[in-house]
């Protein structure tokens, strides 16, 4: 028994793992999420499970006359293909997309738990826009001028001041330390109101920036305020809006006093006051973190977008290709950006928006006039690149569509009919187990146990991968179960031969396995080869049904080989070392005892 200890432990661990995977409806480990409210949490195709039933209508309007234009069949077909590609690439499962009448599209998606995601992916309103983004644009605030300012002073931050914004309270220093030096500008009431508007606008850009970080996007650049004070000497500094505090119920705003640029020291109040002088002139400039400029480039100008890899580094990238118009505009813009960077050192970006949401804002590295560009990023993953390409693509539906119907729908094969078939499947499997046990007795019983484990393992793997199970998957599963049964039967028949030849039980088990192995191996390997070729070809040709079949069959065959070699074999050997060996009749197929006389001959010849 000790000899099989390791294998037995592996089997026990696998059984535990399998039952754990199958018994939890939903599995969440960090970013890894599997399962759902389907039976055993398996992901099922539309034929086995219901889903969403969406009907869209093409909405083609003449831009000049605003009249509805009749869509052609080609346009509908193009629309259908675009949506098909988009849904297939998203992993939402195999959809059914059919043209309905002249101008409608029926889309059924399997078990969509998040209809919002499905709809946004199908992209009824998606509008893709490319904008030129200039970084840190100074905008002089002319509305704030000398007339709005009553006075400018420098002093330690007074204790009576309270912050205008609760969130800035943390900047208030500890009691033990002296308050920091601040510059205080006293506005006229009208000036203060003007200034508050500017301040609010600046704070907003900070909120947007921090939100974009929280969402995991590349952070946008917040705007700041540039203040120039021309007193005895010129004092110019940049203030973040969060560091500007309003004196409660007053028209005075306090700014952190800048340290000396060369020494890094903050001056004393006296020095500061001397710097400012008595009647300084103050100029405000808003430094806009980023300013987006429309360049007239939209999803219509995009030919296609697809995920790829950097040829040398292998890092995922997004490839984009423009049509003629897009190539021209994109070329002009990028040439201009590069020129500007060479002359001023300011590197503008191209910001890409989908329905006003920023997707990404890549930096332009060279002038791109050929109409093909790649977007790369340090943190790009295969998944991010795929989603980006999809979203870029989704900005260019050939014709606009509107959702006119949305409902839930049940499985194509019918829930009632399927429920019956599942029961029937269990009856069938049960009968097989009974047949094997009655005919092959103890080995049959062991094979039945192995078969149940096998079925569980296959389902667990389907759930983890995950494989979307459709009827073609079920067919593959039936075939692989058939092959698993066959492997067991092959082994038992060989065992029987060896027992007849007068071997001991344990050696009959071992030799039976060895003799049956080439047949099992060749049968399974040829099936795996078939799966590989079917998968590759159907991937090239786009026959998704065949693809699903080959993946499920391959998984099934691999597990079936494992189950026959490891599980059945180890269990048989373990039992072969127990007292059960004395009951030889339990190990022989039924009816075997009365065959030997005729069957002995070939065996005798062989030895």
């Amino acid at each position, binding site marked *: 028994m000790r000899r099989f200890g390791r294998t037995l432990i592996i089997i026990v661990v696998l059984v535990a793992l399998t039952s754990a995977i199958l018994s939890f409806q939903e599995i969440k480990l960090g970013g890894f999420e599997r399962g759902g409210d389907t039976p055993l949490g398996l992901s099922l195709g539309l034929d086995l499970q219901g889903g969403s*039933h969406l009907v869209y209508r093409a909405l083609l309007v003449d831009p000049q006359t605003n009249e509805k234009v009749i869509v052609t069949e080609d346009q509908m077909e193009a629309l259908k293909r675009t949506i098909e590609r988009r849904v297939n690439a998203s992993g939402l499962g195999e959809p059914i997309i*059919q043209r309905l009448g002249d101008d409608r599209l029926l889309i059924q998606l399997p078990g969509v738990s998040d209809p919002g995601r499905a709809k946004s992916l199908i992209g009824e309103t998606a509008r893709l826009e490319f904008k030129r983004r200039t970084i840190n644009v100074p905008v002089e605030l002319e509305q704030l001028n000398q007339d709005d300012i009553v006075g400018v002073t420098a002093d330690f931050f007074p204790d009576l001041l309270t912050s205008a914004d609760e969130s800035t309270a943390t900047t208030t220093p500890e009691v033990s330390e002296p308050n920091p030096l601040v510059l205080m500008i006293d506005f006229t009431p009208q000036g203060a109101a003007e200034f508050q508007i500017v301040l609010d606008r600046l704070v907003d850009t900070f909120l947007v920036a921090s939100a974009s970080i929280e969402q995991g996007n590349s952070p946008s650049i917040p705007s700041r305020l540039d203040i120039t004070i021309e007193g005895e000497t010129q004092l110019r500094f940049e203030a973040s809006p969060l560091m500007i505090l309003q004196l409660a119920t007053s028209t005075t705003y306090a700014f952190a006093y800048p340290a000396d640029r060369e020494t890094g020291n903050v001056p004393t109040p006296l020095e500061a006051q001397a710097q400012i002088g008595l009647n300084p002139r103050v100029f405000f400039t808003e430094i806009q973190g980023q300013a987006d400029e429309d360049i007239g480039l939209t999803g219509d100008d995009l030919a296609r977008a697809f995920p790829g890899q950097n040829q040398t580094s292998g890092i995922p990238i997004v490839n984009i290709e423009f049509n003629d118009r897009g190539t021209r505009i994109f070329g002009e813009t990028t040439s201009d950006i590069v020129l500007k960077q060479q002359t001023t050192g300011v590197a503008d970006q191209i910001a890409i928006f989908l329905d006003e949401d920023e997707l990404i804002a890549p930096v332009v590295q060279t002038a791109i006039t050929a109409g093909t560009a790649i977007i790369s990023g340090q943190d790009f993953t295969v998944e991010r690149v795929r989603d980006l390409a999809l979203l870029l693509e989704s900005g260019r539906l050939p014709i606009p569509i509107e959702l006119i119907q949305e409902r839930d729908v049940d499985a194509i094969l019918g829930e009632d009919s399927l429920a019956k*078939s599942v029961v029937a499947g269990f009856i*069938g499997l049960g009968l097989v187990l009974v047949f094997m046990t009655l005919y092959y007795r103890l080995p049959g019983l062991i094979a039945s146990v192995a078969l149940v484990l096998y079925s569980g393992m296959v389902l667990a793997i389907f759930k983890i991968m995950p494989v979307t199970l459709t009827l073609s998957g079920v*067919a593959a599963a039936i075939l692989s179960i058939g092959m698993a049964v066959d492997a067991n039967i092959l082994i038992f028949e060989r065992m029987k031969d060896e027992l007849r030849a007068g071997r001991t039980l344990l050696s009959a088990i071992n030799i039976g396995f060895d003799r049956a192995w080439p047949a099992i191996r*060749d049968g399974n390997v040829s099936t795996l080869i078939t799966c590989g070729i*079917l998968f590759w070809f159907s991937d090239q040709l786009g026959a998704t049904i065949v693809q699903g079949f080959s993946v499920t069959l391959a998984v099934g065959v691999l597990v079936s080989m494992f189950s026959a070699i490891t599980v059945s074999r180890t269990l048989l050997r373990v039992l072969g070392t127990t007292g059960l060996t004395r009951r030889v009749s339990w190990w022989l197929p039924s009816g075997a005892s009365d065959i030997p006389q005729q069957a002995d001959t070939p065996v005798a010849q062989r030895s």
Partner: protein
Amino acid sequence: MNFVGLRGWFFIFSALVILPGIVFLIIAPGLKQGIDFTGGSTLTLEFSDPVNQTDLRAELANLGHSDATVQQLEDNVFFIRTKELDEVARVAVLAGTEGNLSPNGVQQLSFDLVSPVVAGETILNAIYAILAATVGIFFYVWWAFRNVPSPFRYGAAAIIALLHDAIIVIGIFSILGVLIEMEVGTMFLVAILTVIGYSVNDTIVVFDRIRENVLTFPNRELSEVVNLSISETIGRSLNTSVTLLITLMALMLFGGSTIREFLLVLLIGVVVGTYSSIAIASQALISWEYGDFKRVILRRPVEASVSS
């Protein structure tokens, strides 16, 4: 039992099964394509009375739409796909369902022509994929049997058996298409893939025994060895197919009606696949060895006979 001696009869029997199928496939409209491939009409019906899916499906079958798919949208509202309905057929569906299922009325919420679910080229692509897989199997079997004389023949014989099985199933369905309007959809395609997988696996099991026996008894006639191998493996062949047939029969009898066509293909496939391993694949090896076909064509006398 002398399996090898019966090979002439096996070949004649297979030919008798295959020929009508091929005739129907070529002369008749061939395989009747189902609505997955042809498109058709869709109806959304709302019934005033409680109607369940099974009854509705049965009623549609009654009206000649056994290929219809029925999906429930909400209680008593169903989305139905059928082959293209003309005005008469549409009215017949409404009248039939109203008469037998919902006396209080049926309301047609929508009626549209609909395009195919699966593009026609999918079938062609699947056939290319299958042919490529066949080539792969051929080379693997050739390689796996490299230790026996003429391993090439084993690969070829396995492919002959595979094609034999696929053609019989397709032929039977084109006959059924003419006789009972049986149509083939995507399920049929999947079922054919399954039959091919089963056929190869079953053939290899018999071949494996031939391989073993050829190496054990190098001096025996091939016909004798093949016959011995078939006798030794027939128990396992029958048991394996019996277990599969048990499962399929259980599904046929107790399962839902929507996968009957699919199960029928598998059922025929399992029977044919088991038969062909013994009666076609193995016998093809013998015929090749003894030049049967040359002999039949040139009317030469028998060169080798089977002793048993």
